[in-house]
């Protein structure tokens, strides 16, 4: 789906001479104004950009401060107010890396495993369900669809206790299964919804053509829908990555063995273990743990923004 969600500018109604005349006059006047008042215009624009940049810096400042503090020696963090560190000390990173039972990379790897499993699960299971809702006709489709939509808004807390009991009896606590298996079963209904919207935008003529060639649903799904749905898949992948990497609550509940901790849990253990003392290493590891998200953000900005925008528009 390319630009379907953005409404194009409506044409000026041709019969309304009055309006047309007024608009032309406006255009003419504004060119004049443009030439006469270029300086105040420029100044205003400059001022606005200045304001925006200042605002942007203010918004980002905590992150910048976090980064700069992570490379300062611990003791100077609170004495040296400046953002540019006067002394650079990378030992915070090495210290923080080895501060817990395992090197921090171990916990990052745990997070990576969970994220990978979630990615596979969401991409496959959600797109399959989305295909069914978007393209297949079956009894009760609208009811099931409504149920799927409502499940998006269900708080996880109402199911977490029984889930815990269930997984505990299956012996899955302290494995990654409770975190990954639900994704394989398309419980992230948000992505099902996202993909349904996308699939609906793909012209049915393609389906029909394929059908004429003798393709069954499986082939249509694999050969036509999925390749065309790359943007939606990319959006799903990116959001899954970010949400799973940051998912604290479920990981806190299902992973109690320190060996299995993921990055957010390990980080939190860090802060509790060292109290208020070693901010330097803690900041360093904070940076390390959010780095993957930041990278995904840098490279996937386009999809992120589009994805968010798409979900919000009527």
């Amino acid at each position, binding site marked *: 789906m390319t630009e379907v969600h953005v409404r194009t500018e409506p044409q000026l109604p041709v019969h309304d001479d009055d309006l047309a005349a007024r608009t032309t006059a406006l255009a003419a006047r504004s060119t004049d104004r443009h030439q006469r008042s270029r300086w105040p215009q420029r100044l205003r624009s400059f001022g606005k950009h200045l304001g925006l940049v200042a605002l942007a810096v203010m918004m980002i400042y905590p992150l910048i401060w976090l980064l700069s503090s992570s490379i300062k020696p611990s003791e100077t963090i609170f004495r040296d107010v400046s953002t540019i560190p006067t002394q650079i000390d990378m030992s915070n990173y090495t210290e923080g890396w080895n501060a817990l*039972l395992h090197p921090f990379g171990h916990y990052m790897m745990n997070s990576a*495993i*969970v994220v*990978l*499993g979630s990615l*596979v*699960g969401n991409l*496959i*299971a959600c797109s*399959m369900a989305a295909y069914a809702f978007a393209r297949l006709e079956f009894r009760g489709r609208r009811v099931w669809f409504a149920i799927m939509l409502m499940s998006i808004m269900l708080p996880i807390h109402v199911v977490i206790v029984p889930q*815990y009991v269930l997984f*505990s009896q299956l*012996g899955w*606590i*302290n*494995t*990654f*299964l409770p975190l*990954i*298996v639900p994704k*394989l079963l398309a419980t992230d209904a948000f992505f099902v919804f996202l993909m349904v919207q996308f699939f609906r935008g793909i012209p049915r003529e393609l389906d029909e053509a394929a*059908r004429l060639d*003798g*393709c*069954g*649903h*499986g*082939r249509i*799904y*694999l050969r036509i829908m999925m390749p065309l749905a790359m943007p939606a898949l990319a959006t799903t992948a990116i959001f899954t990555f970010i949400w799973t990497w940051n998912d604290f609550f479920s990981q806190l*509940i*299902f992973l*109690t*063995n*320190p*060996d*299995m901790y993921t990055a957010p849990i390990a980080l939190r*253990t860090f802060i*509790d*273990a*060292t*109290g*208020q*003392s070693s901010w330097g290493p803690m900041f360093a590891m904070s940076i390390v743990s959010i780095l993957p998200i930041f990278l995904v953000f840098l490279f996937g900005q386009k999809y992120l923004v589009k994805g968010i925008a798409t979900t919000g528009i009527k």
Partner: protein
Amino acid sequence: MRTHRTRRGPRAVGLTAGLLAAALALTACAQGGADTGGDAGTATTDPDEPVTIRWSWWGSDTRHTLTQEVIDLFEEKNPNITVVPDYTDWGSYFDKLSVSVAGGDVPDVITQEERYLADYASKGVLEDLSQLDIDTSKIDANILQSGTIDEALYGIATGVNVYSVVADPQAFADAGVEMPDDTTWTWEDYVETANAISAATGGAVYGAQDYGFNEPGFSILARQNGQSLYDENGEVGFEPELLAQWWQHSLDMQASGGQPDAPKTIEVDAGGPEQSLVGTNTGAMAWFWSNQLTALSNASGRPLQLLRVPGESQFDRTGMYFKPAMYYSVSSRSSHPEAAAKLVDFLLNDPEAGAILLSDRGLPANTDVRAAVTDKFAETDKQAAEFLTSLEDEIVDGPVVPPAGAGQATEITKRLNAEVLFGRLTPQQAAEQFVQEVTAAIS
């Protein structure tokens, strides 16, 4: 058309199944993690089979380093046993433990505390240590008794310590305030001394750190007045007015500057010995367990002194008591109880282990070990040992073992203390609420 579709149908199914199987296989590989204790399997009987057990404890960095040394020594002597350390700070230890228990993932050797021992024993989480191969012949009978509930030995105390006031003589000297005579000083003297120090240093050095977040301090006051925190019937054994008095002293000190203001107190409290006022040389007195003296001295870098708590001679009787510092327990669900027992036995009875741990977990419970290591004690440990010895004549009895549910008192005390310090509850209101909540917790 239709025939084509039905022929393609199974293929779609096969494809789906294949994909899902691949994904599941991926997650099966992901099912990593140590196979430490918790899975209720048959215990191994072969003593030489490689075995991994997990040992949990709480503490500060000093303790963690010491403990790692002890573990290394144990592993040297028992090459087939690997000990996985599992440590956190005191504040989150029992939260984490209860979650682990709920997850079926209990450490094999658990460090326990008197407030929680009954709780966990009643839930069937702890093994009866008398059934395991642990030599308790050299351990004081009283100590063994302190870990015995209903004839079963659920935890062996690692040693004893005493809740006391840790003072920084240099801070006193700098402020020009005389060190109080700890055998005679009253609670009012304590408040005045603290205020005097703060006043003399203009607040640069506080007289004292707030004591109101830890209920053993109140237990002592209760005992001094012939009451007690818990009575033999497993109920609260004190009048709320007394508890209100205890908190009132804090408020008085806060108002006159003897202790920091409430926000600072909250932040400092979260930090343990290393971040305490005494530990950072910004305070002259603080209430700590005697076995934390070493950690405090290391952090502060100065010689510190242990004082009796105020009011020991103010009322009818003394209130201080020897507390089992902590207990070693073994999980009843451990798959390697023999290995766990070996570790506990080693920690309690091996003089080399004693030589490393010294008095970090209290004065060693095994009398032989205690005699052997006393001269190896660092200055601070010797100091603590001498202090404990000096109290032997004054300490008349010990408090009742806290009932099941007493563990919640820790959180209740902390929270109500914050309410009092911030003026959101009066001491009397807080005291009454304390009684109400603790009664509910232990019933």
